[in-house]
């Protein structure tokens, strides 16, 4: 039975992929933070009444 699971589950692959979880989420939050900052800056620009 343990051999059966060893054939299905690949711990080595899992360990290889784990760093991408951190990098990916960090990347998304950094890009999001940049976009939020830019949108806030756009919203704070004085309005010329062209709504």
């Amino acid at each position: 039975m343990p051999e059966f699971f060893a054939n299905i589950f690949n711990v080595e692959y899992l360990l290889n992929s784990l760093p991408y979880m951190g990098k990916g989420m960090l990347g998304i939050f950094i890009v999001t933070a940049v976009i939020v900052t830019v949108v806030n800056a756009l919203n704070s620009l004085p309005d010329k009444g062209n709504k």
Partner: protein
Amino acid sequence: MEVLYETLLAITWPQVAMWAIGGLLIYLAIAKEMEPTLLLPMGFGAILVNLPLSGAASVIEHLFDIGIAGHELFPLILFIGIGAMIDFEPLLTNPKLMFFGAAAQFGIFFTLCAASFFGFELNDAASIAIIGAADGPTSIFVAQELNSNYLAPIMVAAYSYMALVPIVQPPIIKLCTTKAERKIRMVYKGKAVSKRTKILFPIIITAIVGLVAPDAVALIGFLMFGNLIRECGVLNSLSETAQKVLANLITIFLGITIASQMKADEFLKVDTFIILGLGLVAFVVDTFGGVMLAKIMNLFLKEKINPMIGAAGISAFPMSARVVHKLGLEEDNQNFLLMHSIGVNVSGQVASVIAGGLILAFFRGIGG
């Protein structure tokens, strides 16, 4: 008579199973109205390519070569239509909502690890994970760019689960939140957004994502081009065409083209069922990620957020926003969450493309 005999003899059990699957997709599309624009052509196409000695298979294969294998034209052109349909105003009014869209991509990276654990190579694991983007065109684009061997089950899973959002999300949301949290009311402070901001937003987003994840610039670029057509105010007829005619036309071709990958001998494998399971995991963890970020933010905020809106961060637009709104009304018939959840939902659309770009940046070149 001889031809009939030859054709009947060529029928195999896996083909019959694919007719049943095609029939099921057509049933879900018509009787349950689940993503009928895609599930119906996919279901019909699945039957078409699995008829014995099917002469249609080569025609649909050709459509696949032109529209998907050839620079992912269909999903990209569809993105112009989607971009023209999206109103980013609720997001621009409250840009902080974008963080929920980011958090709700957690399912993608969780599923990447889960698929790797099941022994899929990194390019395939990443392609499977992108089902969690809850965005058909992004899933097709990424899986094709990464040369995944599992394009068909990925496409079927992506579109099927998008259709199943009203069934998949509510139990997860309820499991992650208390009744008191679900009753939290949120006031919508609808500030007017200037036309200048609406026009600059698609251009700036394209530039930012293009700099960070150049591989995703086609995706975000086509999406934002569609949005720019909508917001510029001088191309109303083009905007209307992109939203309706263009999107519908591409959807017809896309659905039937996906079916070219649903040939019995390629589709009916154990891996397909594992991928369908992993796709579900991606949607569940996406929902969990969005809700959990809202709960964490509530620890620090004076004005509490209803954590259910975090679940709308998956980009299944606009189903996810509607699900959250409906759940809010179930708990308190005066709790209107629609504008907040729509804002989160459109941010999920942008975040899912960014996630796709990051996945491509990490794994392009790995595929065979």
